């Protein structure tokens, strides 16, 4: 590996009192990878992701994200990553344009730069004639594409996607993954959590968390080989079956 890892953790741990949500996880994500971060509910995915995105300060261990330390430089990390979650994509009561302007604005884009980014984004998504419409009136698939583009409006090198395709039909999901591939080809690293195992197959590498630890991490093909499984679904099931934590 010649390139520098974009995410690098070493024994990263987060405890809440006696409960250890994330237990000494160590892994690296290389630039341009689509890194699938899997795990059952309660396995510690969300906590790990919060630490990596500068929302939570870890209890112990080491981690650097886009070259910054998660303990000391969370502000710098926040500036250089994008984030999109299934729970919320865009403000329904604002227009497409206003949403782009707002999220561009909070990432420090303004004036000509913002206008340029906005025009480019609308053109790429072919939403030019919809820019004055309320986001609420867009179909869910479009919202999601727009949301993904907005998460990357400040051209981050790394994007966190937290279950980005929840509640979307298969065709839209496929289209969404095409966007992810396109972004990865342009050198953006994608860190994605999902519950859909077919999506796990699309990733360049996946890690599966069980009870706060990383139980397995490799390319989907290698994982299937190792567990003698037909698909990722079986791999996941074999590993997650051993979990002691419930929801």
């Amino acid at each position, binding site marked *: 590996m010649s390139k520098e890892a974009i995410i690098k953790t070493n024994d990263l741990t987060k405890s809440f009192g006696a409960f250890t949500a994330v237990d000494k996880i160590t892994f690296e994500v290389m630039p341009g990878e689509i890194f699938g971060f899997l795990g059952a509910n309660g396995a510690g995915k969300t906590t790990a992701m919060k630490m990596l995105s500068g929302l939570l*300060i870890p209890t112990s261990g080491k981690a650097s994200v886009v070259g910054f330390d998660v303990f000391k430089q969370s*502000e710098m990390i926040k500036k250089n*990553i994008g984030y999109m979650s299934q729970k*919320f994509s865009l403000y329904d*009561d604002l227009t497409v344009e206003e949403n782009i302007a*707002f999220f561009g*604005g*909070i*990432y420090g884009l*303004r004036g000509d730069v913002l206008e340029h980014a906005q025009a480019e984004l609308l053109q790429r998504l072919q939403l030019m004639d919809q820019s004055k419409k309320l986001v609420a009136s867009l179909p869910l698939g479009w919202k999601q594409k727009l949301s993904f583009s907005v998460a990357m409006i400040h051209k981050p090198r790394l994007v966190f996607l937290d279950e980005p395709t929840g509640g979307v039909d298969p065709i839209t999901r496929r289209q969404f993954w095409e966007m992810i591939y396109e972004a990865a080809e342009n050198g953006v690293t994608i860190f994605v959590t999902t519950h859909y195992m077919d999506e796990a197959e699309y990733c360049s590498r996946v890690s599966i968390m069980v009870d706060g630890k990383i139980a397995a991490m490799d390319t989907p093909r290698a994982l299937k080989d190792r567990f003698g499984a037909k698909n990722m679904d079986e791999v996941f099931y074999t590993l997650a079956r051993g979990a002691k934590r419930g929801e």
Partner: protein
Amino acid sequence: MKTFLAFVLKEFQHVWRDKRSLFILIAMPVMLMFIFGFALSNEVKNSNIAILCPKLDEEVLSVIEKIDQSKYFTINKMMHNPNEIENYFKQNKGKMVIVFENDFADKLEHDKLANVQLIGDATDPNTATTMIGYAQGIIGDYQKSLLGETNLPYAIQVETRMLYNPQLLSAYNFVPGVMALILTLLGTMMTSVSIVKEKEFGSMELLLVSPVKPIMVIFSKALPYALLCFIDVLIILLMARYVLDMPIRGNIFLLLAMSVLFIFTTLSLGLLISNSVDQQQVAMFISLVGLMMPSLIFSGFMFPIENMPKPMQIISNIVPTKWYFEILKSVMVKGLGFSYIWKHTLILVGMTAFFTLVAVRKFKIRLS
């Protein structure tokens, strides 16, 4: 700073899009002012009363005339038989009956003593008391005019003056009251709901992973509501002055400054609530029951605090609305200056600082 502006702009867009809430924010003070000003008045004005008088002689007629002429009473029934009194009240035709005794004029002239009985419907004790008071006043006046002709060796004349509000207009009480309550409700509820909404939708998380300072997120959400509350203050003051003809005696700038301070108090309370709960419904419930009810009871607007038992009087001190209500009455009605309300001001400043501090602390704890 520019990021902050982007935020504020977005908040205004939210408020602007939500036409229904916006309408409520503007229409509520207007409606309350009209309701209290014209419908819910506890002033006695043109109240229906009846006269029971077996024989209408000249003396009686001149008393009745005086009563009928006053703006307080309208005589809608003349009775001749005491049996009629009960029916009059039962059918709710009026609230008071004035009974003149038999041979009223004769007795007045020869015995120098005649009796009048005032019977009030005390199902509403406040109104009954007020009406009896007015009737006594009118009869007293009449008596004085009789005395003018004869000379009594001694006389104590009672002269009453109602300071600050000689016409006993209820506006002097409800305008400050409505103002205090509206600010309490809107400031707290709108802020807390708007912040909790972001939590519920999950957008809060998105804002927190952005490089924006979390505190900025919170304060920018409060700003549009601060402005709307201030607009409400102006609406109420303008209506008080030009619709209800209530003079605003104190310094208007002092009044506005104090209102801004109280708006900050309610916003800080709103922040505190929003940082403690995760659902809009809960935020609304806490604002309504946890804050609106005590404000209604303990502000002194509806029920005089001096008449409450000691423990309740003590509790009233922790209700911010009470202090603002007192400031409003002092400045607006009595025309007092800052030297009279500095203590109140200090308390409100202290409360605001305390709420903000706790809110920010709670917010930080949630983050880690």
